[in-house]
């Protein structure tokens, strides 16, 4: 394992130290190097009267979530250990820090660990008289949503939920309103990903799954955990088709509709290849008569240095489009 690290055990804290210094105008990072529970809050604190937005999850998915703390998006983020959900004693103070008196929406990716820890933390925050609503993101179509699985995972679509709910909160919607907008995004966003190679968790020191040189894994989550099938490496066009078709079919996106097309990199795939996928995906959508009205291409929800990508579609309406376009100023997204 070759990584730019001093001590693998301190990888998260050392990274957050740099993040805090680089973006001191946007964020405050609490509890580093044993000083207490680690979480990130917006510089200047909660905005009075605004619904606060909190998200969190394992580290290793940067810029998710800390990179999206700032005006128009999140008020606090909670980074866990690498690929491990944060703990309730981190999440609860983050919820409190995000509360400007109008309540807090917790945006939780549907992974067992995230759900259990947020559930506990929300109970604790409510005991401290903070009003908390929760939205569960489950955009991954690779996993069958049934009694026989933990349900669909929350993956790259989380960025859409955070951005659009953040804009709704910024324009002054109340907690129920922000939650309703977030639920609408969840209902209209779907994703699927592919891994071309595994990644290595710093403190483990070896690849987190075994993938042969000529193999790829279709339908991964954001840790490389599988969903659909392992197949032989093939062309970008074919891989794009294998990702896009299930997403578009599951979303029942119809001719004449508008979508946001998001091609997300897993951390180890160059931007140039992401644009190859984007171009192919866009052509496939146009064949279906679907208009790509908004686009996002880049590394937003990564899995350390994993090679791979995911495709996300969000069905747009006028309001979601306006909220997507609303100003945002965070470390990883701003317009």
């Amino acid at each position, binding site marked *: 394992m070759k990584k730019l690290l001093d001590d693998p055990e301190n990888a998260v804290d050392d990274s957050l130290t740099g993040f805090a210094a680089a973006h001191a105008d946007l964020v405050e990072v609490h509890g580093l190097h044993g000083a207490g*529970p680690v979480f990130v809050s917006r510089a200047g604190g909660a905005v009075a009267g605004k619904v606060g937005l909190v998200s969190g999850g*394992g580290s290793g998915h940067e810029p998710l979530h800390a990179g999206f703390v700032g005006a128009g998006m999140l008020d606090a983020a909670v980074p*866990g*250990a*690498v*690929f*491990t*959900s*944060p*703990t*309730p*004693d*981190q999440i609860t103070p983050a919820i409190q820090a995000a509360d400007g008196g109008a309540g807090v929406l917790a945006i939780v990716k549907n*992974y*067992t*660990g995230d759900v*259990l*820890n947020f*559930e*506990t933390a929300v109970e604790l925050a409510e005991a401290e008289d903070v009003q908390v609503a929760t939205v569960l993101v489950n955009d991954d179509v*690779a*996993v069958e949503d049934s*009694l*026989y*699985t*933990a349900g669909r*995972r929350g993956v790259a679509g989380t960025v859409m939920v955070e951005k659009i709910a953040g804009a709704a909160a910024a324009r002054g919607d109340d907690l129920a309103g922000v939650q309703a907008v977030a639920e609408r995004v969840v209902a209209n966003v779907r994703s699927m990903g592919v891994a071309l190679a595994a990644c290595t*968790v710093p*403190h*483990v020191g070896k690849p*987190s*799954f075994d993938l042969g040189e000529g193999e790829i894994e279709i339908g991964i*989550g954001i*840790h*490389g*955990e*599988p*969903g659909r099938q392992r197949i032989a490496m093939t062309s970008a066009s074919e891989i794009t088709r294998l990702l896009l078709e299930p997403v578009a079919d599951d979303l029942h996106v119809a001719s004449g509709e508008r979508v946001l097309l998001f091609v997300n990199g897993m951390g180890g795939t160059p931007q140039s290849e992401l644009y190859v996928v984007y171009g192919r995906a866009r052509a496939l959508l146009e064949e279906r008569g679907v208009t790509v009205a908004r686009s996002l291409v880049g590394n937003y929800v990564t899995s350390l240095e994993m090679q791979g990508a995911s495709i996300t579609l969000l069905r747009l309406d006028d309001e979601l489009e306006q909220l997507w376009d609303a100003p945002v100023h965070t470390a990883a997204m701003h317009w």
Partner: protein
Amino acid sequence: MTLDAAWARRWAAQAAATVAAAKDDLTELDRQIGDGDHGHNLDRGFRAVVAKLDATPAAADETVGAVLKLVATTLMSTVGGAAGPLYGTAFLRAAKVTDREELDAPAVVALLEAAVEGITARGHATTGEKTMVDAWQPAAEAAAGADGATTLAVLEAAAAAADAGATATIPLVATKGRASYLGERSAGHEDPGARSTALLLAAAVAAAEEP
């Protein structure tokens, strides 16, 4: 052999040593069907437990429950993932029914049953889903079946059942937790949470056998 607060402290220390020794094996099991960090997360938690207990001198009237509560809150705030809240809840519920200086055999049964109830309530899992419940549930049942025996025999029965339960997860297809994403491909691998449960209960026996 008395199952008192000193035993609970020895249990925690023994569990920490066992987990530290097995952390690579547990992580390897998790690499097969999960995300490959179970051993390391649990090791981080139990190292924190030992540090917390070392920093908290035993009071003369300390109860088993007080020690287990400290274990619970420390695991909850350091392990993360699914294992943190699940083990945390297990120990927290166990603490509630063991708020006494010494456990008899029925109290050991109550401890295990409370732990299982906590885990199933928090994780919404039941037996046969390839999770830690597949080790905890048979452990509690074996303990209840051994009622009337000595406390050590009850613990031994529980640990043996947990061990067998963990092994029995190998052919199962996971329907809860991260392994469920693998579907049929999860068969053939032992569930890391069930294995760590067996290790923790074996540590409880070892702590009871110490003078």
